[in-house]
């Protein structure tokens, strides 16, 4: 499942967190680089670019947002943010600044691994693009605009399909409300969350997704949506 020898950089000032993440990642076959400070992390990204950066937002020397913006100035490599609870705003800011996803501290290693796999798989896909996406129970063909749930075709409206395409292309990466609204409805609709809630309700209904136990579309309260993978 994992592709060994992929290199991950963890930028985190807490030695204990660095340690358990490194041990777990190495056990999964990844190579791990460590940086205690933001500047150090940016330098490592330049010197030996990793496949993914795990970034703690509370660094002693550099604001997490600055780190993301400076890295994004020249690189598209995936960034997974570690953020504290109860700060949806901070998460959304980080995502808007260019982070790809986040994990809330304290986190279990399983959650971190899942997020890392999603981001790496997405990177891999960028190398060999294909309009076909297949997940357990769901198949989406972006080119032909075809959707199948458990083998049966489902007909979607234009906006429902646009929303599903976004989620599918994200492959499990979280998408903020604002981004979905901008891409499905266009600029100027970023505040119209109620459109989005209604559309998600309709899409779930058509996909046969129980909102209480969603199989496909997960709600990330206060932040956005992601596809369950």
């Amino acid at each position, binding site marked *: 499942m994992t592709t060994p020898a992929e290199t991950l950089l963890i930028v985190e000032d807490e030695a204990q967190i660095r340690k358990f993440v490194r041990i777990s990642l190495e056990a999964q076959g990844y190579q791990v680089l460590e940086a205690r400070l933001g500047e150090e992390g940016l330098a490592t990204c330049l010197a030996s670019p990793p496949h993914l950066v795990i970034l703690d937002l509370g660094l002693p020397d550099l604001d997490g947002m600055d780190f993301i913006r400076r890295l994004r100035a020249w690189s598209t490599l995936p960034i997974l943010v570690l953020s504290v*609870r*109860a700060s*949806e*705003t901070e998460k959304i800011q980080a995502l808007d600044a260019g982070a790809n996803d986040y994990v809330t501290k*304290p986190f*279990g290693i399983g959650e971190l691994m899942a997020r890392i796999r999603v981001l790496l798989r997405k990177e891999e896909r960028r190398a060999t693009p294909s309009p076909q996406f297949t997940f357990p129970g769901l198949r989406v063909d972006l080119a032909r605009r075809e959707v199948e749930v458990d083998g049966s075709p489902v007909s979607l*409206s234009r906006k*429902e399909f646009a929303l599903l395409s976004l989620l599918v292309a994200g492959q499990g990466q979280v998408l903020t*409300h604002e981004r979905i609204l901008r891409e499905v409805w266009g600029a100027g609709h970023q505040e119209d*969350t*109620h459109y*989005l*809630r*209604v559309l*998600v*309700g*309709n899409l779930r*209904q*058509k996909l046969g997704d129980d*909102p*209480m*136990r*969603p199989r496909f579309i997960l*709600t990330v*309260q*206060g932040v956005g949506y992601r596809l369950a993978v």
Partner: protein
Amino acid sequence: MIAHTAIAVNPLPRAPGRYPFRRLAPYLFALLVVAITVAVAFLLPWLFPHASRSLLFLTGVLVVAARSSLGPSLMASFLSFLAFNFFFTEPVHTFKVADDGDFTTLAFFLLVSALSGNLASRMRQEMAQRRASLERISHLYAFSRRLASAAGTDEVLDALTDQLALLPGTPPVAIRVFLTAVGESPRDTSPPREVRRHGDDRALAPPAVEEVWVRGIPEPGHHGDWLLLPLATDRGAFGLVALAEIPDPEQLELARNLCAQAAVALDRTRLVTDLAGARLAAETEQLRAALLSSVSHDLRTPLAAIIGSATSLLEYGEAFSAADRRDLLTTVANAAQHLDRHIQNLLDMTRLGQGKLQIQRDWVDLRDLIAGALARLAEVLTGLEVEVRISPEVPLLWVQGTLIEQALVNLLDNAAKFSPPGGRIAIQAEPRDQELVIDLCDQGPGIPAEERERIFDMFYSVSRGDRHDRGGSGLGLAICRGMIAAHGGQIQALPGEAGWGTRMRLRLPLVNAEVTPKPEGTP
């Protein structure tokens, strides 16, 4: 008590213009009465042939004496004497007296009228004095009744200013009341601040008050136009009353009495305020103690499990079976998550307590909130049956989703704690009269009626000390109420279905209810 030192109070000049007439009036009255007596005396032989004219004149003098003072009554007797002599003794129409007997009569007449006039006028004066003192007493009595019923310092001050403004005679044209801050001991503190202002707005310079205050317990004394009276009891002085232009010593005496009474009442109300402050401080202290005990208990219990399990694994890990190792590690993970929830609660409570909770509303689907809460509590809810019924009529909510989700998490967590193994937790939601009503029923032991409101008090369960074994800190429900209240909603504990368990009812106002999700299935 206050020493009633005599001080010189310059009587104000009496208002001119009113007094000459007031002074002359009794003399005019005496003149009129004598004239009428003369007229009646001429008619007397026709009306009452045998009546004595001298007695008639004496009656006239007594009438004057009774209605006025000594001067007018003496004048009346002298005039009566002259009139009687002139009109009715031989030789008529002269002031001569022919008969010795008549002369004696006239002399007695003058003496009796002078005596009785004096007596009557003295009686009148005494009555006037008595009426004045009665008025003063009823004034004081009304005042003490008002003070007795005054519940707070403000009411006492109102009563005092009202009463001073109603002083009989010429009331003071300006009244100021100054008080020190409650709780400060007298004298060694900052000067009293003005708390009441009545009458015209002539200035009493603040330095004047400070000066008087610093100089010592202020005796009533003058300061420019102002007369200063202390507000003091035997526990010390705590204020001043300043009156502009008190006309006479009697009023000063009355004003002083009013101030002395008010001082006693103020002392009482201020003492009550002091006590209330002390009680609040004690309650805060109790709350702090409860918080400390709660925090140390709630944080240490999971920590004990974590440290114990982790050190066991470190020391004897190799001797344990794989199943035991896994068991201990599960304990570590669960206890840590428990700890995380408690810390979240403490943080939430701090934010609620500081009133800094600014809600960021957005459109939210209730089903997402319930699903989120259930997912977060998956472990706690293992072994329980959860049934969710959400009416399709429930519209989108305009709330801060994370807060409502947290409130649901706390309610569910609580329900799970008190549920018997395999128990059922039912969640129902439906809109009702511009409100969303969410009911959460459990099959736990239920809550006695008298405690249903108190369980939302912070640390209620802590102070009862009987829920620690269930792992509750008492914060959860208080936070829940705080979060719902921040949205303008309410939460209450009701008896459960079929007479057992608990039904937690959460009501949220539906804002902009016209925006409802389209019926499912229609594009």
